[in-house]
């Protein structure tokens, strides 16, 4: 101690030291009380995959949905289960009788995080940005609307004019996440629509405001008290979404209360462990999520119909659904979830039959001279095990294959180019809007080729014609027939391998209340959540 005092430039007397020590002790005591109140309630969610960007227009998937739902708002928002479109920043909307023009009246006084008001010009800019950037939901919008076709009639009225009537335009309006035009434009660099900046920063009006983002960890956001929806009496002050690729770390973290919510792509064994533990709960909800394998149709040998059929016969569907997943899920033989309209009920799909697989291989023209690449998503045990099981079946049928794992953002990037797209990729198509177009429509329309919905790069003019027609109609029974027809074609062509349809499972902390599940958000909108007690 003496030695240290001698070293300091300002000698401290003993009395001073005691006084300071006392002050420090008081400060420590206060610090123990105060920050708990100041920091408030904190929620940590462990996601299966990383958050590589916080740009709301860069992704249209479940893996990064938390960014869009918590930091941004749209004109409409899907809420409740079964999902209903609710007016959000828009107060009301009118559709012209010809189905081409949509006019939205917006609320007044909706504030961005920087305090400026959300106006029609911001909506117009946001849609133009989506179309220009060409990521996320842009492949959908491009089929319906041209850049510049959105107009700000006045500060609070925005009008969209479609190229042709669309049955699903309204369903994807929630994906027009409104960004702060002035702020983004200020940060544009070389006509990039502010992509470099917005991938790390926040320009939203959502219930939470971004405070920290690190692609290697995740993002943290603080409650935005001025959010237009207002707040009840209880809320979460800070939310954090983290990418945690290891299943065990996620589950144990939830049980130890390090995480208060984790991604729900779990196996029966894990769900049971969470349920029996007592610190966490598994919420369940009726929903639709189809597990499937996408075939890269652009190169041999997968481009050969018989090879694809052989692969479809080589997967042990029952072994996977009943034994590995313990009957948690239901077999789903087509790209459409069994429970939605538009499913051709007479289509049986493929079964596990190695003799048929070998017979198909004998008919195949393409030579399989190198191992077929079976890609799974790292962090998602189910997809890894499905890949291993498919490999097992293929080996028995005499087809060499290799199993390779990719993180979700990486594989989505690979899908953009047919050359980098894996031969077979195993993952899920969740509900983005409750319409058959969400599955068979987007998975097999040439307009979505290169997105994760159509990683097959599937292009078939006949199917395109059916799907386009289905989109332009409004009568459900008419549309159903067209989707049935399209589904029949793609099943016959074995243009993918469809495994199961499942409910939604949400592992959350017991003390967390107010979580609202709706299929599109996967229960990651934290605005309504709070801790009990």
């Amino acid at each position: 101690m003496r030695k240290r005092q001698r070293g300091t430039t300002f000698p401290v007397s003993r009395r001073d030291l005691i006084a300071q020590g006392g002050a420090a002790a008081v400060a420590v005591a206060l610090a123990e009380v105060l920050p708990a109140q100041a920091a408030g309630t904190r929620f940590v969610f462990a996601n299966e995959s990383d958050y590589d960007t916080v740009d709301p227009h860069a992704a249209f998937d479940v893996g990064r949905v938390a960014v869009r739902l918590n930091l941004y708002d749209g004109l409409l928002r899907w809420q409740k289960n079964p999902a209903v479109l609710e007016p959000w920043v828009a107060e009301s909307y009118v559709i012209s009788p010809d189905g081409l023009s949509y006019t939205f009246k917006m609320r007044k006084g909706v504030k961005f995080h920087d305090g400026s008001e959300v106006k029609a010009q911001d909506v117009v800019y946001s849609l133009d940005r989506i179309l220009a950037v060409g990521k996320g939901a842009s492949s959908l919008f491009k089929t319906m609307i041209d850049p510049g076709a959105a107009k700000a009639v006045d500060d609070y009225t925005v009008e969209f004019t479609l190229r042709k009537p669309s049955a699903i335009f309204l369903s994807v309006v929630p994906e027009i996440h409104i960004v702060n035009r002035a702020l983004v434009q200020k940060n544009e660099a070389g006509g990039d629509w502010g992509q470099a900046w917005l991938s790390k920063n926040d320009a939203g009006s959502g219930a939470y405001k971004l405070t920290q983002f690190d692609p290697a960890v995740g993002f943290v956001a603080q409650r935005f008290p001025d959010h237009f929806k207002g707040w009840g009496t209880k809320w979460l002050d800070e939310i954090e979404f983290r990418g945690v690729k290891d299943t065990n770390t996620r589950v144990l973290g939830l049980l130890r209360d390090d995480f208060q919510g984790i991604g729900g792509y779990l196996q029966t064994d894990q769900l049971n462990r969470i349920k029996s533990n007592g610190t966490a709960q598994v919420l369940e909800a009726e929903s639709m999520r189809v597990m499937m394998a996408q075939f890269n149709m652009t190169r041999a040998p997968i481009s050969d119909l018989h090879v694809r059929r052989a692969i479809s016969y080589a997967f042990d569907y029952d072994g996977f659904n009943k034994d590995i997943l313990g009957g948690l899920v239901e077999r789903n033989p087509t790209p459409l979830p069994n429970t939605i309209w538009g499913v051709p009920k007479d289509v049986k799909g493929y079964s596990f039959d190695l003799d048929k697989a070998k017979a198909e291989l004998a008919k195949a023209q393409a030579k399989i001279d190198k191992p077929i690449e079976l890609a799974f998503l790292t962090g998602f045990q189910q997809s890894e095990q499905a890949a291993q099981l498919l490999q097992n079946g293929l080996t028995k049928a005499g087809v060499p294959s290799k199993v390779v794992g990719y993180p979700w953002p990486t594989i989505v990037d690979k899908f953009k180019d047919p050359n980098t797209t894996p031969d077979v990729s195993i993952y899920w198509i969740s509900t983005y809007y409750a319409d058959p177009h969400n599955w068979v429509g987007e998975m097999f329309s040439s307009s979505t080729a290169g997105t994760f919905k159509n990683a097959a790069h599937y292009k078939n003019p006949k199917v395109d014609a059916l799907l386009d027609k289905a989109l332009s109609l409004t009568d459900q029974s008419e549309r159903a027939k067209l989707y049935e027809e399209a589904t029949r074609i793609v099943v016959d062509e074995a243009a993918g391998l469809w495994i199961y349809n499942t409910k939604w499972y949400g592992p959350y902390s017991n003390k967390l209340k107010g979580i609202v599940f709706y299929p599109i958000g996967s229960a990651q909108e934290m605005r309504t959540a709070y801790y009990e007690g």
Partner: protein
Amino acid sequence: MRTARDIALKLIGDPSAALGLLIIVALVAVAVLAPLIATHPEAVWDMNPRDRLLPPSETYLFGTDRMGADIFSRILFGARITLTIAIVAVGAALMIGVPIGLISGWCGNWLGEALLRVSDIFLAVPQIVLAIAISQTLGPSIENVILALSVTYWPWFTRLVHAEVRALRHETFIEAAIALGVPTWRIVLLHVLPSVLSPIIVRTSIGMGFTILTASALGFLGLGAPPPAPEWGRMISEAREFLPEAWWSALAPGLAIFLVVMGFNLLGDGLRDVLDPRIRRGNPGR
């Protein structure tokens, strides 16, 4: 010089070294005879989801894993992968490390210093971290694990050989050989190398255990042999999700790694006692 027979007898006389030797002989036997010993040789590659996560029984000696494959058979076949990785990686490290050590030790000039500094660079980064970086960049496969391990392990041999050669450089018999006009390469290969062989052998044995441990860690992290290869580290990683309920699926590969690494370490220690009198373990009984 002691004969091989002397060394073998001394090794067997030391209980812990004998145990190490026994484990390694057993490992080699298991690896070679895997198809004969395995109770379900077909189940190494064949998955049967209906029998997944069964506890150890007469049919499945070590139980079954999450895909319904027989763990006992997978462990046996995994011994092949483990042994291949260890032998090839340490062999390659020897090939690189020993000549560089000889050169740097013998020359001692700027060249020797430069070579040493290069090995220092490799030693500065922990082996496992460097190996992860390399195999992550190259993609998961056995070949890349072997490459990563050999690239990161050779500096240990260089350091060791360098120090030994430095010490030998001015021994009388070397000076005599130089005075007689024996060519340098002949001195290094025929006089220096045999004299530094003992520590190399000891280091090799310990290095095998170390390499197996690192290879398993890489496998555990998903950087090793891609599935369905029965790689021990990967088996533990896959089993971890079902702990503690299906304890057997992690226990068997864990024990296998433990035993083999211990075997190589015991043997290494024993060899050191026999071959290198300078650093013999303190054991007043002998």
